[in-house]
């Protein structure tokens, strides 16, 4: 349910962006949906990379106590 609302909101944002004239400074920043895609990909990459980081630095909770 929440997922569907989120999907609707995201779609609405992209449609709104096409309708609304916005002020662009860097040309790539003006591509429709750039910010959405960038946010989506960033978060995906961050979480996947962090998951890999776990292999390297994850330790038992009592690691420093013994």
């Amino acid at each position, binding site marked *: 349910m929440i*997922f569907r609302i*989120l999907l609707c909101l995201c779609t609405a944002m992209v449609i709104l962006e096409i309708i609304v004239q*916005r*002020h662009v400074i860097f040309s790539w920043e003006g591509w429709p949906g750039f910010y*959405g895609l*960038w*946010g989506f990909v960033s978060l995906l990459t961050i979480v*996947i990379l962090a*998951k890999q980081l776990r292999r390297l630095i*994850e330790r038992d909770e009592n690691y420093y106590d013994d």
Partner: protein
Amino acid sequence: MTSLPPGIILLAGALVLPWLPRNAQATGALVLPALGLVQLLFLSEGTFPAIELAGLSLLPVRVDRLSLVFGYIFHIAAFIAALYALHVRDTTQHVAAMLYVGSAVGAVFAGDLITLFIYWEVTALASVFLIFASRTEQAYRAGIRYLVVQVGSGVLLLSGILIHYHHSGSLSFDQLIDPGGSLGEANPGVWLIFVAFGIKCAFPFLHNWLQDAYPKASVTGAVFLSVFTTKLAVYALARAFPGTEVLIGIGVVMTLFPIFFAVIENDLRKVLCYSLNNQLGFMVVGIGIGTELALNGAVAHAFVHILYKALLFMSMGAVLYRTGTIRASDLGGLYRSMPWTTAFCIVGAMSISAFPLFSGFVAKSLTLSAVIEGHYVLTFIGLLIASAGVMEHSGIKIPYFAFFGHDSGIRCREAPFHMCLAMGVAAILCIGIGWFPEPLYAILPYPVVYQPYADFGHSLTQLQLLLFAALAFAVLLRSGLYPPKRTTINLDTDWWYRRLTPRLLCFGTKHVVLARDILAEATRFTGRSLMRAVLRHYGTEGTLARTWPTGSMVFWVAVLLAASLILYYV
């Protein structure tokens, strides 16, 4: 009242608190910041008379727009935190908190470096008691580590001040690098001061005292801690190093690396510490760019950040206070028991993620505009990634793991009324500043012409970024790719001094002991053989100590005489 130095009401008040009845101390601690704020409102810009001390001319109080903004927000935050701590019946915590706030306020109004150094050290000494206040072995150890780092920063600061004084003959706490100059051309004293500020500001690799100590502080102590130390450092950087380009790079790294640690961290207050570190990065970038717009952005960010970060620490503190745990793996589904805390936490989360109409947005937009204006493309891209990261760890993870998600089965009472009230005040300020940023813009160090909502496209793209990031989070959760909650800890740079160095020292001493033992054994062996040889010849049974019969002596004398006779003739 205006002739009193700012902060002195809090410092003097802290010394009076222990003499009040125990149940009046918390109220006393609430009155002090309110009085301090009133004093500040009547304070006019300018400096107090200089003091001559040991041949040095000191300027203990300098009031200008930059110090005033920090003064205001420090008092407001102290009031909110004291309201939150109204149930605490622990003299040490109230006294430590007020000394800590008072010295932080004193430091932002310091006009010379020596005064700054004194307040700098008092903040370190006072704040450590808020960590000790948990009264656990772990908190004690973390407190000691915190103290070593903080006092270390003070020692570096003092050394830097002395070298800088030797080079320049000036003690004034002003811009230490000329506009357009770089850190490389400055004298070594300035470098040391820079590193001292960097430690308190949690620069990359100097940051881990923060994530190590703050999560172990008491429920209310962590709220105080989240406000002052690091923002004092931000103030100091904004005062002494505006426009120092190296800060841009440092800031971008600071916004990015803590995100990864925050994603996999199980202790939710530690997640907030990583998030705090990431937020400091935005401010450091603003200071590094150094234009009026960017500095306004950094200061506004510090102002609103203090409010929403304190709000988030308060909501997590309330969870810890009611459930006794703050581990994500033990929590979930608390919205049923703590609806108000949940709502306040969500306001904090939306503010820190910089949703339009929340306080984070109106501050972050200033910095981002300055980044765009200066055409710092890579920095801009870095900050966009960091914004998605903030959305992940503070915007979604904190409220989702504590209050929603998997139901932990914990049923507890809502946070006490005064805690809800403190969170409510902070939440109202977060929303209020988001809707009406003008009063905040009016107190910034430089005039603001910026209007965050003038360009609807900006709000739209920000919303798009955040909502799509939230969508990515939902996709990850649904597909099971999101890293599962586990009761583990993650190593960070504290590993170097908590594990590697002790191990190396242990290894070193073990081998020194071994070498000493081998040497001792060798000496013993040589000495013993030597003594044995001596004894063989000179000992009681030795050849040379034997008692000889008189006849043999006469015989040998005769032999000697005969030999000499023969030699004489030859």
